[in-house]
């Protein structure tokens, strides 16, 4: 059942890639939409099958593959991956929906997007470390091409930077995985067989550091983030949506699944530093965003800041904090996708992304009133205004971590204040102000451009008013994860024993 989420897009990619030249771009787009539509519906079907009371892995699939290597094809879904798989299916559909009808080389473009979607779904569903790694690497080259071919001005530089960073990330993760297998003397890469490993704490910390830095590049966390602004800015709107909405979440997922999940003791030991790291990321992203003059770049830096909250929730090691962190992954995916889409529409209609040039788009006659209104909403959701989905995720993170790390939490609260600062700058310059009537001959915003924004806005609003629909999935698994973490005394004992 789960395999369909992976293989339908991948087969779709192959079929679309091999279509003859005569097939029109429109048809190819429709085909890609249909495939991702089926995947989205299938995901919704899986959601109904999901047992909320079961904290373990569900809907498992297993085929032995290369047993000598310890590689088997085992899939499964739990509360953590379900949320992200849903986000992936939704955002892929939306990204294809809002991609330009007249894309160059449509076959390659849609094939690559589908390939990415299948690969990411595979990574979220894998219950085998090596299988995860294969899927994790699968999306590397397609994204490189998506940025390098359909990107903006500095696409070559950005794509190469992305490729190199991600390759380093992959190497670190593989090294950590292999190290774990050898040191723990495990017979296979199966996730559940590695759960109860009892390595000395020093080695655990070493392996965890590899995983943290490897996935930290992907998330990205400061100081491994400089690929992000360049890549996000260079990427076209649908690719940026996927990069920010889905791919960054792959990093966050990896940190929770393989960092916290496999090395709970080492995690507990490093947690105070992780909280500091989170606060630094939040403040760094927010302050850097204030100084930006390009709205897409500003949103990109804002994304760096927002990923810090996820790490803070994880570091807190409380159920509320981690549920908040997982909710923040989904919330941030939705909000970032909305913001990138709107910024893309503004750029397409007005022809610039420069804060100093944009003005008065809220003008109801000549401007882009609906797009501006949604931009206000998206920005405010990102700034954590209650009633929108960003607030509840951030609030849960803060609530969960305040008792453990008060100072770091307060610094992150200040970060949300700075978020408000740069978004107000953005809104004041783009939406407010006087529109110059002489140049304000913008093309009409089509329904095709409005629909994705409206869908995302509706989700942001609904999940903000009814957050239970977002948090309920991840609660059982989170409780189990927190229970696996040894308490303070237990860590001390382990440390002493290992000495």
């Amino acid at each position, binding site marked *: 059942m789960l395999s369909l989420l992976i293989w339908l897009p991948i087969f779709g990619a192959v079929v679309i890639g091999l279509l003859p030249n005569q097939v029109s771009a429109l048809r190819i787009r429709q085909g890609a939409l249909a495939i991702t539509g089926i995947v989205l519906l299938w995901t919704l079907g899986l959601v109904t099958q999901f047992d909320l009371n079961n904290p373990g892995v569900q809907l498992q699939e297993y085929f032995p593959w290369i047993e000598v290597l310890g590689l088997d094809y085992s899939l499964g879904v739990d509360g953590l991956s379900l949320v992200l798989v849903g986000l992936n299916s939704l955002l892929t559909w939306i990204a294809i929906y809002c991609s330009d009808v007249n894309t160059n080389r449509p076959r390659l473009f849609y094939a690559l997007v589908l390939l990415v979607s299948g690969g990411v779904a595979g990574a979220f569903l894998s219950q085998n470390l090596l299988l995860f790694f294969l899927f994790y690497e699968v999306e590397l080259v397609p994204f490189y091409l998506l940025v390098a071919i359909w990107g903006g001005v500095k696409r070559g530089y950005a794509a190469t930077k992305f490729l190199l960073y991600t390759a380093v990330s992959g190497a670190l993760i593989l090294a950590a995985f292999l190290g774990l297998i050898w040191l723990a003397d495990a017979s296979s890469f199966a996730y559940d067989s590695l759960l109860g490993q009892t390595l000395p704490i020093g080695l655990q910390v070493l392996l965890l550091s590899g995983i943290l830095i490897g996935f930290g590049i992907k998330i990205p966390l400061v100081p491994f983030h*400089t690929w992000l602004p360049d890549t996000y800015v260079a990427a076209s709107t649908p690719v940026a949506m996927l990069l920010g909405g889905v791919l960054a979440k792959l990093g966050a997922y990896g940190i929770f699944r393989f960092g916290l999940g496999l090395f709970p003791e080492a995690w507990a030991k490093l947690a105070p530093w992780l909280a500091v790291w989170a606060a630094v990321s939040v403040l760094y992203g927010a302050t850097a965003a204030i100084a930006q003059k390009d709205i897409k770049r500003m949103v990109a830096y804002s994304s760096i800041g927002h990923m810090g909250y996820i790490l803070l929730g994880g570091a807190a090691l409380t159920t509320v904090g981690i549920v908040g962190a997982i909710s923040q992954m989904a919330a941030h995916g939705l909000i970032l996708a909305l913001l990138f889409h709107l910024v893309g529409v503004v750029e397409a209609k007005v022809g610039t992304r420069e804060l100093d040039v944009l003005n008065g788009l809220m003008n109801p006659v000549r401007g882009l009133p609906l797009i501006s209104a949604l931009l206000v909403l998206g920005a405010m959701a990102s700034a954590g205004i209650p009633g929108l989905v960003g607030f509840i995720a951030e609030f849960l993170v803060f609530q969960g971590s305040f008792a453990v790390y008060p100072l770091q939490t307060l610094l992150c609260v200040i970060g949300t*204040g700075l978020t408000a600062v740069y978004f107000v700058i953005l809104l004041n310059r783009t939406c407010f102000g006087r529109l110059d009537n002489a140049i304000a001959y913008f093309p009409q915003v089509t329904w095709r451009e409005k629909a994705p924004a409206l869908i995302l806005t509706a989700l942001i609003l609904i999940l903000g008013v009814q*957050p239970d629909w977002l948090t309920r999935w991840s*609660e059982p698994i989170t409780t189990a994860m927190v229970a696996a973490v040894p308490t303070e005394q237990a860590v001390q004992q382990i440390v002493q024993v290992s000495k």
Partner: protein
Amino acid sequence: MLQFFAEMSWLIPCYPFIGMLLSILWSPAIIRRTGPRPAGYINLLMTFVALLHGVLAFPATWGQSARYIEIVWLRVSDLTLTLPLEISSLTVGAMVLLTGLNLLAQLYGVGYLQTDWGWGRFYTLMALFEAGMCGLVLCNSLFFSYIVLEILTLGTYLLIGMWFNQPIVVTGARDAFLTKRVGDLFLLMGVLALYPLAGTWNFDGLAQWAQTAEVDPIVAALIGLALISGPIGKCAQFPLHLWLDEAMEGPLPSTILRNAVVVATGAWVIIKLAPVLALSPITLSVTIAIGVISAIGGSLIAIAQIDVKRALSYSVSAYMGLVFIAVGTQHIQSAYLLLLTHAVAMALLVMGVGGIILNCITQDLTQLGGLWSRRPIAGLTFLTGAAGLIALPPLSGFSALLKLVSQLWSTHPLLAAVVLVVNALTAFSLMRIFALIFGGRPTQMTIRAPEVNWEMTLPTVILAVFALHLPLILRSLDIRPVGDANLSLLLIWSSFFGASLSALVYFSPVISKPVNWLWSPLRNLFAYDFYTRTLYQSSVVLGVDALSRITDWFDRYFVDSLVNLVGLASIFGGETLKYNNTGRTQFYMLTISFWVALIAILMNWSTLSQLVI
């Protein structure tokens, strides 16, 4: 039947909320064919329904104990967020006041914004404020109060930014949003910090906890200071008061609500939090100090303003300062009464002035004058509002101030003196506004100024009648002016002293206007609002700006350069090494042997070094 309405009181915020959702359809670019006016009519209807419901429910709650409704909103592990609603005579009464004032302000808006194209947005936001404020008074939880305050912060930003074509409006909206948000975030910190200690966010639960709690004095003080920060921002108290001044660039019908009740949302929350604040004497002292500074500073600044809306807005800060003093000294009843009388009187003052601003196309006091014969209704309603605000029996402002003064007199005589001074200064300021608008000779701007249309006059007159009857209503609810006879004489004397002095100065044709007797640096200090803007610019704004530039520079030139350096180094290395590709087997063999030997030596270094020794 009335009981039924009382039980269903939670519906009251829902009516304006529905109105808000419906008027979104007329926000630009969705429904174009009908023009934006239906949005206004729908909201008037919904507000009227809400008011009717409240009026019907109020008698059934009077004298009854409060009823509580709890709705579970979110449950995550051990954290359960329950929305507790309190239906009592206080909350329903407050909702009646809110919906009533809203109805009048919205009707006023129909007249004031007759030619405006932004009806959809305007009425959406008015309804948002109405729903939010009704929700705030109804909910009995600090957490949900925070949520409402934060949403209203966003509402303020959009409502002040209504006429976003003008640069000054844009900066005003920005400052309002950021100032309030600073307060809100400190409030959030307080909310977060309070939960692990108290285990609840319900106001009654917090009050119970505070009675027996033993908290470290420093922690209690920090939490208390964080908690009052939100109200400081909302109530435009020093040092977060500048936004109210800039908010005066927004449309006037929203100013009616903002000056009368929106600022009071912060006061409402701080009143509810009074038992928690009482845990720390430091917090109480700070609350009082901020109240005193804002009360006296605000009334002094008000006198130096030439913009009539700004002059009124600083009186709002001053009166909210009095509420802070009342809360800081734990006189809760006086605080509530002061909020009520201030809301009615201030709304009336703004309404009275609004008609003049609309017709004379200016809000500059120096451009106005001589309107008494042309605008008797506006003049009378303004006088009624002024009389209702200051201590002038038999109107209700007198009861509120008398109650506060007599409570303060025995314990804090200095604070009682502050109240007297603020009363006298406010009387001075209001009489100054009255004299400059209605007295003197007509100017170019006022020579042709008829009374405004009925949509604006009617709500103003209704509110004036209500303000005149408020003492009777309070009496029927058993709230009478009580206090020492000497104190009431003192209070009345302070009102008369302020008003007559001002009348003497500003009505007299002998004294030339503008009056500039005061030493000019001092005058500028008040006129420029204690230079708060400069203070902000040179501290917080400068700091954040510098920090962001430094971070950006660091990111661009340090972190990214380091990354590029690594890339460059590897390219350089590759480029250099490529000259080794000579194609000669001997050379390759030599290289390989050299490196193998080196590695071998390094790997066996320990054995080798022993050998040597």
